Each structure stands twice: as structure tokens, then as C-alpha cells.
């Protein structure tokens, strides 16, 4: 029974002697799980501090929704953990195909509605298909590459992998959501690297993705808002000051936190309205202002531990599919942390990419929990 780990009795002397040490339910990575939960709880507090002053009616509105999202995410994660990741081999194609259909549908809806769309509006919730694409593209790519039993990726298979990543990436760029596209490219790079793609293939991907961004930028595929954000980073003096304004204030919030921070709910920039959409785009600035260098280091260390655990599981996995999945999750997580924290520190351009587990947002949270469920699944079944 796949869900037997949920009803596992506590270790009581010889009570569990019947269970094999290889039983999946006895091989959960508790460190990773704990770190993940702690980050999510901290995220709730940070979302509250960054949004409460801007919500007129109910200061708890965002954090309440985030807690609901977290519960859903936990359920999703356990569901993913319950199944052997081998099972995805057969289903990856279908899920991936479904994702592409949904992405195309979103673009068509956007054209019909005459505006850019990055989410489906389902009453109280918005669903972002780009988040789903991260999960399914990772599975598809890992399954596809694990098929080849050689130590290095052949050129045709590399091209195939490129297509698998390219299709959703392009559809997401068109939306336009450069941030999510960059996440998909980053996970592809991780998987391809570990799968043994030659250095020049990796270089090729890098060039391609930079070219895509450039093409989108000059071909007006990127909306004005995003191109302004990029221009602002390249040349802050030339861009209108309003574009650099929020990033500037985010950096000030971090800086003025100093070593110890101004204290819980004490940050004037966090409490003010100077940093738009802080709860989703700049939660790290709220950490920096309220808890200073110490708080930032704690958060980054937790992320560090999570990364190390994922990396370790990649290492422990007995088969390449598990390794590839973990490598993809690793690079994706690493990239997203670096991008989000980096834009808060003004070393990266401003994108709408959330900080995993911390930022407000249901789709992002659920997908990350699902991904970590996959990683746990790899860990749980490493001794099979």
C-alpha cells in the first residue's frame, strides 16, 4: 500500500522489526521536510508584515490565504511522495502535452481579450499555468534523458531535450512571463549538465536563452513594464526614475536593517507604501529591514540546507531518473533564490519571480511542494 507510511506506528522496540529498512516510509528525509516547513511558516509571517499596512479591510487577508495554500500544498506533496517516481515515466508525456495545450489556450484567451494574460481567473483564485509547466517540463525532460543509457547525451537527444524545454519556454515568454521562462531554462540546464551534455551544448543553451530574451526585448514581445525593468538595470540613469524606484527602495529597506534589523513590524519602508507588491516580489526586503543581516543569513542558511539535501539526494539516487529530477529541482531552486534575492539587492533585474516558500502566491507554493515531494520520493525509494 503506497500510503502505508502515513499510518506508520512509532518505533516501539521490536514493533517495526517486520518492516524492511528499505521500506519507503522509513526513508523520508526529515531534515529537508523540516527546513521546508520552517521556511513556509516564516514566509507566512513575512507576508503578513509586508502586506498588513496595505490591506484596508483585513490585514490578515493575504496571510490567511497563504496558510490555506500551504495546507493544500502539503496534501499535494504527500500525494506525490506516496507514488514511486518511476510511475511518472508513463504519464510524463500526457502531462507535458496537457501543459502545452493549457499554455496555448491562455495565449488565445489573451488575444481574444486584447490583453496580456499570465493566469486563469477562477473566481477567488488565479491559476498560473507557467507554474504547472515547471513541474511537467522537469518530469518530461528527466524521463526523456533517463531513457538513454549512455554516460553522455548524444547530440540528437540533446536536440530533443532542447525542444522539450523550448516549447513551453517560448509559450511562456509570449505571455509574457520572462521570469518563469528563465526558471524552466535553468532547470533544463541543471538536468542536461548532470545528464552529461557536453560543455558546448550547455554554452549553446545559454546563448539561446540570452538570444531569446534579447529577441523578445527588441521584438516588443516583452511588455513595456518588463522592458523598463531590464532597461532600468542596464542603465538606471537613462530609465525613468519610476522604474528603478521600487528596486531602489527595496535595497534601502535591506540596507537600513543593518546587522540586527529594526524589529518585528518596525520597518518604515515595509510598513509604508514605497515598495509595490512587496509581499510577492520583495519579501526578502521585509526580512532585511525587520531582522537585519542576522535574519537574512538565517533564511539563506535554511535555503542552503535545503539545497544541500536536494543535492545529496541527487547523489544518493540509484537511477538516473532520480538524479535528473533532483538536479532539476536543485538548479531551479538555486536560480529562483538567486534571482529574487538578487533583484532585492539590485544585482539582478526586477522580475516577478517569487522567493520559494516565502513569497505570497498559491501556484508557486503548491508546485514547490510537489517538486519537493518528487525529491522525497526519490529519497524514499533510493534503496529499492
Amino acid at each position: 500500500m503506497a500510503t502505508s507510511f502515513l499510518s506508520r506506528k512509532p518505533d516501539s522496540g521490536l514493533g517495526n522489526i517486520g518492516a524492511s529498512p528499505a521500506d519507503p516510509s522509513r526513508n523520508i528525509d526529515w531534515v529537508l521536510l523540516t527546513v521546508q516547513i520552517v521556511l513556509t511558516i516564516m514566509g507566512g509571517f513575512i507576508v503578513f508584515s509586508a502586506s498588513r499596512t496595505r490591506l484596508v479591510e483585513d490585514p490578515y487577508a493575504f496571510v490567511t490565504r497563504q496558510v490555506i495554500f500551504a495546507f493544500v500544498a502539503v496534501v499535494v506533496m504527500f500525494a506525490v511522495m506516496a507514488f514511486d517516481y518511476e510511475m511518472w515515466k508513463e504519464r510524463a508525456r500526457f502531462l507535458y502535452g496537457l501543459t502545452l495545450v493549457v499554455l496555448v489556450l491562455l495565449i488565445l484567451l489573451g488575444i481574444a481579450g486584447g490583453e496580456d494574460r499570465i493566469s486563469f481567473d477562477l473566481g477567488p483564485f488565479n491559476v498560473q499555468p507557467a507554474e504547472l509547466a515547471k513541474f511537467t517540463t522537469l518530469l518530461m525532460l528527466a524521463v526523456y534523458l533517463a531513457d538513454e543509457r549512455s554516460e553522455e547525451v548524444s547530440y540528437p537527444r540533446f536536440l530533443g531535450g532542447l525542444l522539450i524545454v523550448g516549447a513551453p519556454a517560448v509559450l511562456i515568454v509570449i505571455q509574457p512571463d520572462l521570469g518563469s521562462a528563465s526558471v524552466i531554462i535553468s532547470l533544463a540546464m541543471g538536468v542536461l549538465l548532470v545528464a552529461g551534455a557536453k560543455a558546448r551544448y550547455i554554452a549553446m543553451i545559454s546563448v539561446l536563452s540570452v538570444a531569446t530574451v534579447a529577441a523578445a526585448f527588441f521584438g516588443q514581445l516583452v511588455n513595456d513594464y518588463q522592458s523598463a525593468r531590464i532597461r532600468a538595470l542596464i542603465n538606471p540613469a537613462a530609465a525613468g526614475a519610476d522604474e528603478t524606484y521600487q528596486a531602489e527602495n527595496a535595497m534601502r529597506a535591506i540596507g537600513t536593517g543593518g546587522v540586527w534589523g529594526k524589529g518585528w513590524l518596525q520597518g518604515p519602508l515595509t510598513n509604508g507604501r514605497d515598495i509595490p507588491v512587496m509581499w510577492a516580489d520583495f519579501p526578502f526586503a521585509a526580512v532585511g529591514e525587520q531582522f537585519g543581516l542576522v535574519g537574512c543569513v538565517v533564511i539563506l542558511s535554511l535555503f542552503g540546507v535545503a539545497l544541500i539535501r536536494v543535492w545529496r539526494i541527487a547523489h544518493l539516487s540509484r537511477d538516473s531518473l532520480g538524479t535528473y529530477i533532483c538536479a532539476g529541482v536543485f538548479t531551479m531552486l538555486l536560480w529562483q533564490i538567486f534571482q529574487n534575492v538578487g533583484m532585492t539587492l539590485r544585482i539582478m533585474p526586477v522580475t516577478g519571480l517569487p522567493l520559494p516558500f516565502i513569497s505570497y502566491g498559491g501556484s508557486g507554493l503548491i508546485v514547490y511542494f510537489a517538486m519537493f515531494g518528487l525529491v522525497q520520493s526519490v529519497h524514499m525509494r533510493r534503496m529499492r
Partner: protein
Amino acid sequence: MKGHTENMAADKRATRLGVLAVVGTLLFSIVGARLWFLQTVEADSLQQQVDTTKVRTKPLIPERGRIFDADGRILADNQRSLSVAVDWELLRRDSQREEIFRRLSGWVDVPVEDMEERFQRGIFDTLLPMPVAEDVDERTAIAIQERVEDLPGVTIIEDSERVYPFAPLASHVVGYMGAITAETKDQYTSNGYSLNERVGQFGVELSMEEQLHGEWGYIKFEVDNRNRIVSVIEEVPPINGRDIQLTIDLDQQQYAEQVLETQIRLRQQAVARNPLDRDTNFTTRAFYETDPVTEEKIYYPEEVPFKAPAGAVVVQNHETGHVIAMASYPTFDNRWFESDLSGGKFGEIFDATDLEAVEYDPVTGLAIPETIKTDPDRSTLVNRAIQGRYNLGSTFKPFTAYAALSTGLLTTTETYEDTGTYRMVSVDRDKCESGVVRCVYKNATCPFGGPCVYGTVDVHTALAVSSDAFFYRIGELIMEENEQKDLLQQQVKLFGFGSDTGIDLPFEFGGTVPDRELKERYAANGVISKDEGTGYFTGDNVQLAIGQGLLSASPLQLAVGYGTIANSGFVMKPEIIKAVFEAGVPDSDRQGYADISQARFAEEPNVDGEVVRQIPMPAEIREEISSGLRRVITGPGHFSDYLHSTTGEKLFFDYPSSAIPIAGKTGTAQGRNNFPWNDSSAFTAYSIDPEQPYTVTAYLEKSGYGATAAGPVVKCMFLQLSGIAPTDSVVVSEPLDTNSIFPAAPKKLNDTSCFSRRG
């Protein structure tokens, strides 16, 4: 062998995973280093930035739309003006304030005491620097800006001021601007106005405020602790107000104002006679007052001068409803409201009744204290053409005639024997003779004394000679023969009496048509006695039939009514707005003109006018009324006891055949105690030439007979419209003489030959 390759693959994989670990460590190091740098090294300087930079929002004022006449003359314009203002920060401490005022005083030529007084009044928006001197010249402004070190916190504010290049022409129509008052404050601020703003208070400036105003923009910027702009965050440019073209043509407007004022001044020289009383066998004068205490009769002298305090003229195109000229006397110069008058000086210039109308000092926005005595006859800030509450007298008779003909009470061939008096048939002889009910009504008095006797009259003759008895009878019969129903009221209301005309000007008076409900309301308000207010009687209808009693209307309503006869049954909405243009109609090469050919319509122009309602106007009814009104102008008179000339015949004896052919009607509305010097004079005429479809109405308060006071004004106006009367060309005005104590400079018609009459 297989195991070997698997191991090798695993080793390679470990190496590649190692690469990932290195990349991860590298990225974390970058983030860590940057974080450490920001939160330790940079912390203080960032804190300083946060402490000193503040976001400021500066509103950007939209430019107000301009107002043009039908020819493109600029009636209302904007002039850039510079004012000097001081930051409130510097004014809070007494010593500092005194010092800054002392330094500024010489530059802007304003005494220190005046600046201090402004400060103490405390009526300025504290979010904006306090203005200490308005309208400074550019050289002074530049000089002040160059001396920032000596004059810290002093700023030059660019502002715009309303100018009226052709003032005082059409002041009542164009209107004026003023401060936002306490009552309108909420409404304006919720529409995004600033409290320092001036808004339309009267005329088109008020009625078109929304179009003229435009929308505020703003600029949001960050400033450092020395108030220097560090960066601009957001800029939303203002949307300028739309330009508006009026239907008013200043050529006609100027002439109308001149002829009205000239005639009123002439009537002030004239006297009304107080004749010897036939009833006392010519031993006493006919008109007297009774002393309320001693009940002694105090007789007026033989000659009493007319007061002739006020009047109005309306010139309208009755095909389109466009108002070509609209004059109201006494008039004012709307530039007074832009001249920084103090409340005291304002009181000197404008009558106390006006101060009540204004209520708030136009400059300071403070309430003007209630003044003791007022004379509403002389109020200036009232557009009598639309606000006048006038008895119409005999000018109302065509509408009574229409009611009688269209309800079938009379036919065009029916005649009536006018004996000079009318005895009501529905009242018993006993009641009548005992004097319980008034049942005998007389015609107007003829030159030989006693009421005129017109003999056999039909509808059009009755109109031509203005037989009261004929219409008294209609007033009675239309009620008695129709089960006391208000048929007369219903019929005259079709012409627009008793309701707003809908003209785009504020404070319009909709008039009253008397009925039971009105009388009850008036009795409740104390306008009439309780006894009178108990019901609507046939006697009231007899009075209504000749335009007396509680009937009231504005001159514009009268013009619309006659226009409806002229155009065969179309009640037109009087239009004052010809077009609304997108902001920025350019100036023309000609001084004082805008280049209308370059204007873009913001709304579809209403060229053909708007029909309020079409009323039944069979050709024979129209012909009967129109021929009667035509005969008023041209004669011939009507023979009974002797040849009675028609009421307008003598005035129009020299009206040339080349002039616009017209039909019209006189009216003399009796005033208090029916004293002849309280007679108000009305005259309306319309062109019967469809190529020149004008209707002209004149009304002169307390000025005499219709044909004597208002008649000549209408006659002259038609001669002007015909291009016969010499007309002064319209020129841009001289600057306002602020030493004057008159609301407006006097206007005079140079050639008054059109006033001439025979006999």
C-alpha cells in the same frame, strides 16, 4: 562489464553534480557578500537617504477652456501670471517671517503689513506655499529667483488668470469666476479640485464649468532634505478644458446692450401723469396713498418720474433656438472679479442686493456680512433675461387667442361687441352689484378719459388694438363652458410657460401659470392673503387672459413663445452654446479672435437646434394670430367711436420696407396699486421673413407703456438686424478702471433716430 560502465557513469555523474555544487556556492557567496556590504558598510548612508528623501506630489493645473462668440471673438481667455509665494516652514516663526517679508516687500511692491495681514487671515492652502504677491512681472520674478540665497523658501508660482477681452459686453452670459464657497466645497473637492482654485460662479463659466475646467495632472518626485528634486517618479499631464463657442454674436450683443441702456436712461427722464379723477369730478388727482394710521389720502403730484431701473433684451433665431443677443440692465464688468478687490471696495461697486447674491468675497472667499437695506430693482448680478419674474401684460394675449381658437371656443370669423367694459356672465347680477364678487373689468384708459371702446372686433382686430374686454370674455368662457377645467393653463403651458426653457445658463426662472395649486402655495408662503388663496376662481382666469394676476415669465420664455407662433408650432430649446471644441483652438491673426476654422469639435454641434415639443398650429389659427400681430406694426387701425390706431402703428410709422418685415405685440404690465409710473413695458416681435427668422423681446421695468419704452428697443434691434441702423464696430476693451465705483462703464447708442414715433 555492465557494472563497470555503471560505476563509471556514477563517477561522472558525481563530478557533474560537483559542478552544480560549485555554482551554488558561488551564487550564495555573491548574495552573501552583497548582503553584508549593504547591511554593514552601506547601512548608514542608506538610512540617511531614507531619512532625507521624501516623495512629494505637485499638482499640475489644467488650462481652462476659452469662450468665443459666434464670430470667434474671444470672450474669455487665460493669461499666464506669476505670483510670489513663501514656504510655510519659514512663516511659522515670527522673527523669521518678519525678516522675509521685509526683504521681499521692496521687490514685489507690497507693504509688509499687507503680507502680514494675509498671513493672519489664514485662508490659504497650507499644502502649497503661501502667495504674498500676485501678478508680478517677469523681470521681478527672475530677479527674485536669482537671489535664492537672500530669499530662502521664496518661490515663483506660475498661474493663470481669467481675462475678458471684450468686457463688459455679454457679462451676464459669459459670467465670472470666484473662490470655492463653503457650500460647494465638498462637491468640488470630491471632483478633484484644489481649494485654492477659482471656479465659475455665474453664466456660462458656471453652467459649463465641467467642460471648461479640464482635469488635474500631477507630478510625483523624490526630494532630498534640502527640497531639491532627486528624481521624478511619475508624471501625469493635465487635461486642458474644452473651448466653448456661444451663439451670441457680439455685434448684436453690443447693439442690444447699448439700445437697452440708452432707452432706460431716457425713460428715467420721462414722467407719468397723475390725471384728475373723473369720479371726484376733476377735483382731486386720481392716484394717492392712504396713510395706514390716519387713513388720510396723500395725493401724488401731477407728474411722477419713472424709476426705470432695469430691463432686458433677448434676440433669438426662432428656427434654431440660438440666442444671438441677451442683454440685462443694470450690467457689470466681469473683470471686477479678477481684479483682487477687497470686500469693502466690492460693496461700494455692487449694490447690496448683489452682495447677497454673491455672498462670498470673490477674492478671499470669506462670507460678506449681511447688509441692511437692499433694492432688488437695482441688483446687478442678475440676468433679467432669464431670471426676471415679470408680468407679461398684453403680450400674453396671442396665447389666450390660441387657446380660444384651438379649443374651439372661438372661430376666426366670430366677432364680439366691445363696449369698453366687460361684465362677467357667470356671476349673478345681485352678487355683482352688491360688490361681493368683482365682476366688471375695464379696458385700458383712452386719451379722452374712460376706457377705450373698440366696437365690433374679431380675434385679429382684438390683438391689433389690444382689446382687453375681448380677452376677458375668453378668460371667463373658456372656464365656464368647459366645466371649470384649466384649459387656458394647459394651452399656454404648451408654449413653455411655467417651466424652464432648458437654456444652458444657471439660475433660470421657470415662471408661473396661476392655478389652484399655485394660489394655495402662495397663500401658505404669505405672498397672497389666505382669503385669496382659497381657490382658483373664474375672476382669476379673466385676469390671466390678459397676462395679469399671478402669471409670471422671463423675457426669454416670452421670446420662445412668440418664436413658436413664428415657426408654426415648434417650441425650441433656447441655445446659448453653439459648439464645444477640443482644448487648444488657436488664436487668429485678427486681434481678439480665435481661429475657429482650426477647431475640432469635441461634441457634435447642435446646428438645427432642439425641438422641445411640437404643438398643433393649424394654418388658419396661425394666420389669424399672425395677421393680428402684423397689423399691430403696420396698421390700419380700427374704427369704432373714432379711429383707434393699432398699438404699434405710430411707433413703426417710419419702419422702412427694406427692413425685416415683422409682426409683434405691445404689453403694459401694471405694477403696485396700478399707478401709471409702476407700469412695466413689454414688447415682442418676430420676423415673418423665413430667411431672417429672428424674434426680439424687450422688457423695461417701471418704464411706461409697451409701445413707449420696450417698443423702440425692439424696433431699433430689428433695424440693426436688417443692417439699416448704424452699428458701432466691436473693439477689444480698454483695461478696467479700478478707480471707478460703477459696476460697468456706461454704454450709449450714438444714433437714436430709430426711437422716433409719430404723435
